[in-house]
């Protein structure tokens, strides 16, 4: 090859790099390893990573069963090692899969259409707010305080330089957004209201009532959905204008927080302001059905600094996992799966309420609930950890007013005996019995 090119050594090809910047030494990184060593190294790390613990954590990352066909199919090289399907004739597999994904997400969220994916639920929510500003020509937002706190942080980062002032709407004793406060905060200059349902406390919001407040002022309603499985049994937010969803629950491993699968869904009339890739149906020269990436004039590779977003790479392969999951469970299975989540959670909340306060009881919940204890939840979790159980997420960090409360989550994979064991361990410090509590109101309602 050197002869063909007409050079003496490979180093000749690097002569454009000024000599003083050429690296004359080996990189100081670990030496080359054999495949067996690599596998060993990562297996060792897995052992240091809570392997074999049972967990009651949710809060935006949910442990559901992943049917094995998902990995069998997404590991096919034709999906795994292909690029963004810009060359449609050579990428119909990916394109048709995206079209089916968009269809199912639209159906599940009650929206007209959905995009091909966003990075995750947090960035999707931030992009939805920016989209609402473009649609309405307004530049302020009202955000629910019971939206995932890390989603709020991401929105703050994105909004900083977009000059989008935000107001926070608090929650009531039911854990739901405070409608009276919301009504006061939404004005004629409000681009959007952003809520989460089921919200960060696991409580299902009255989306219709919120939509009415927003729409009265010409404000768009964005609903963030972090627990996709809820859509199997909870009425979707049909009155919303944009749904910003995290689809991790649909067959995506917890993976220490990523990669996950954000997705935006919206009404047909807003599609040209939507960020992200879209697959659309068309025909070839012979009239045969095919699919292409479409409405690209919204995107950065065409519009550059005038694009709807700078997003390019998305979460395609993760969206394929979600797609296969939705196909496996389908019309009936998703509902049954959601019912199992509901039943486990109802049982667990009932068991906890015999020994501690289960907050926010006044509204329906899906698969998460908040437990307030007399003992510091961090101390309780340390005790549970000794039994290889990961307890609920202490809320103090995000909600100082809920200093002794933790967010617990059950899914279809949580067994009755896990619940009973955890409740028993929590009861050690609480010592209440069934008479003393049941579902109660929180000590103080936060704004």
């Amino acid at each position, binding site marked *: 090859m050197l002869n063909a090119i007409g050079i003496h050594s490979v180093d000749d090809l690097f002569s454009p790099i000024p000599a003083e910047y050429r690296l004359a030494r080996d990189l100081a990184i670990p030496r080359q390893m054999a495949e067996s060593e690599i596998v060993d190294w990562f*297996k060792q790390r897995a052992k240091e990573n809570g392997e*074999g613990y049972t967990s009651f954590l949710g809060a935006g990352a949910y442990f559901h069963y992943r049917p094995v066909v998902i990995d069998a199919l997404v590991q096919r090289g034709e999906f795994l090692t292909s690029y963004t399907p810009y060359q449609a004739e050579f990428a119909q597999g990916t394109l048709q899969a995206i079209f089916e994904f968009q269809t199912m997400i639209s159906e599940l969220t009650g929206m007209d259409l959905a995009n091909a994916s966003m990075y995750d639920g947090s960035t999707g929510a931030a992009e939805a707010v920016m989209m609402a500003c473009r649609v309405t020509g307004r530049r302020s937002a009202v955000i629910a305080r019971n939206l995932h706190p890390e989603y709020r942080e991401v929105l703050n*980062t994105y909004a900083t330089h977009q000059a989008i002032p935000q107001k926070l709407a608090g929650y009531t004793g039911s854990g739901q957004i405070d409608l009276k406060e919301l009504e006061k905060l939404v004005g004629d200059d409000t681009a959007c209201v952003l809520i989460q349902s089921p919200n960060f406390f696991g409580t299902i919001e009255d989306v219709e009532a919120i939509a009415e407040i927003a729409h009265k002022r010409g404000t768009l309603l964005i609903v963030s959905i972090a627990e996709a499985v809820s859509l199997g049994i909870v*009425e979707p937010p049909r009155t919303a204008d944009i749904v910003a969803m995290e689809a991790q629950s649909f067959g995506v491993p917890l993976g220490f927080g990523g990669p996950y699968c954000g997705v935006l869904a919206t009404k047909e009339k807003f599609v040209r302001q939507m960020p992200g890739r879209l697959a659309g149906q068309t025909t070839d020269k012979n009239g045969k059905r095919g699919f292409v990436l479409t409405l690209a004039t919204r995107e950065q590779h065409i519009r550059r600094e005038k694009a709807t977003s700078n997003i390019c790479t998305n979460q395609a392969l993760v969206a394929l996992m979600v797609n296969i999951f939705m196909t496996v469970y389908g019309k009936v299975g998703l509902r049954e799966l959601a019912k199992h989540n509901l039943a486990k959670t109802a049982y667990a909340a009932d068991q906890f309420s015999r020994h501690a306060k289960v907050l926010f009881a006044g509204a329906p919940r899906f698969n998460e609930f908040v437990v307030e204890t007399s003992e510091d939840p961090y101390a309780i979790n340390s005790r549970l950890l000794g039994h290889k159980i990961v307890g609920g997420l202490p809320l103090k960090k995000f909600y100082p007013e809920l200093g002794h409360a933790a967010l617990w989550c059950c899914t279809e994979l949580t067994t009755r005996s896990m619940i009973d064991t955890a409740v028993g361990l929590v009861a050690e410090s609480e010592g209440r019995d069934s008479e003393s509590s049941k579902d109660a109101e929180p000590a103080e309602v936060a704004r």
Partner: protein
Amino acid sequence: MNTKHMTRKATRHISQNEGLIFEKSSPGKAAWKLPPLDVPEVDTAKLLGKQERKDLGTMPEVSEIEIIRHFTRLSTWNYAIDLGMYPLGSCTMKYNPRVNEFVARVEGLANGHPYRAEKISQGALLVMKTLSDCLLEITGMDAITLQPAAGAQGELTGLLMVRAYHQSQGNARKKILIPDSAHGTNPATAATVGYAVENLKSNDRGMVDIAALAAQMNEDVAALMVTNPNTLGVFEQEIHKIAELMHAKGGLLYMDGANMNALVGKTRPGDFGVDVMHLNLHKTFSTPHGGGGPGSGPVAVKTILAPFLPTPVVITKPDGMLGFEYDRPQSVGRVRAFYGNFGMFIRALAYIFANGPDGLRQTTEDAVLNANYIRKGLEGVYDLPYSTPSMHEVVFSDKVQSKKGVRTMDLAKRLIDYGFHPYTTAFPLIVPGALMIEPTESEPLEELDLFIEAMKSIADEVEEDPQFVLDAPHNTRISRLDETAAARKPVLRWKPDPSVR
């Protein structure tokens, strides 16, 4: 059918037809099974009231074999690295090692919840720490965040830090300079961060014009975003002068690391004056593109920018345990929930382990060697608009072929018939009718020769029968698709045929 020019790589074979999954659905089919419920059943109407969903509409009902066949059939309609060379310029479509996929699925790493106590997350934290250390050594930078989900989000993160830095100096400044050869995400990102974009012209060698830069650089400029090697595959030979010019007026040098595959182990951006840069783990570090994602776009910075890194940052605590640091008052904040695309960190680190210092250097050398071999092989057949030496990719133009009315996209579509994925078309914008070719280090000589043979053969076809090339592809399941119609009346989801229901 013109078969005269068909090469050794591709031939036709049976391709299965397959409808949309919804068209196979019928009531009663199922591919799922839940275990018996071990807690009391609940009355959903009572629990949820008006919030209960009654119907899932047109969601499919299909059996497992139908699902396997459906997605397997779809997969066979895709081209992939696993099938052959994928010479998309600036996309670095290299081999995606299967050991990466295996270790990413090891129980414990795959099922680690992001909010688990640090005490039982040490394995994941060590993956992040080790990868961070390796990437810092590779780039010659001082501090890093792994949080950004992709290259474009890395750019966003980097520019947020640039802005925060200038703000801390008392003036956020107004604009970002971007060469006319830049990728579209660069200007789109600058706009997102609230900076005006000012275009910087390239010189006749395809590099940043130093005189133009000196003229345009002033105290309003926050940073220059430069890709190096740039999108022509040309190394910015005066990169240190560029850095000096920026620094002299208090500006910063941002490097888009999209083309880092030309540099790893041979030179380090931190050594030639770069202040902030992002990497694409899905390009340089072999994590799969997966049909468009997920990516991962770590951002590495010099010490002056370290206070502004997104939260949290991985640190080693006094007791030797790894943990997350959240209390960073000057941070730009969070750009993503949790810690980034962790699954990609595992894969990238496995790639670095599999290569080591020698392997990474050789990877870079082979990538540059392969690109130059193609350049030599096609010189004279296709127009080479810039004769400046190529690094890991080479950019030709359709100047010769367009005289016959055949443009780069047409040539690309014909390349499909020869069993190759097209190169990058119509980019960079400074080359009209660009053919941007990046073979990567993964391609054996035999595959490179087949590619050169195919490109030469297509050039011959343009001379003999341009219409045949204009009508390509001929051998795919479907012919050229009507993109205009797709955009004019968008059909973005399937709907049941009302006459059937």
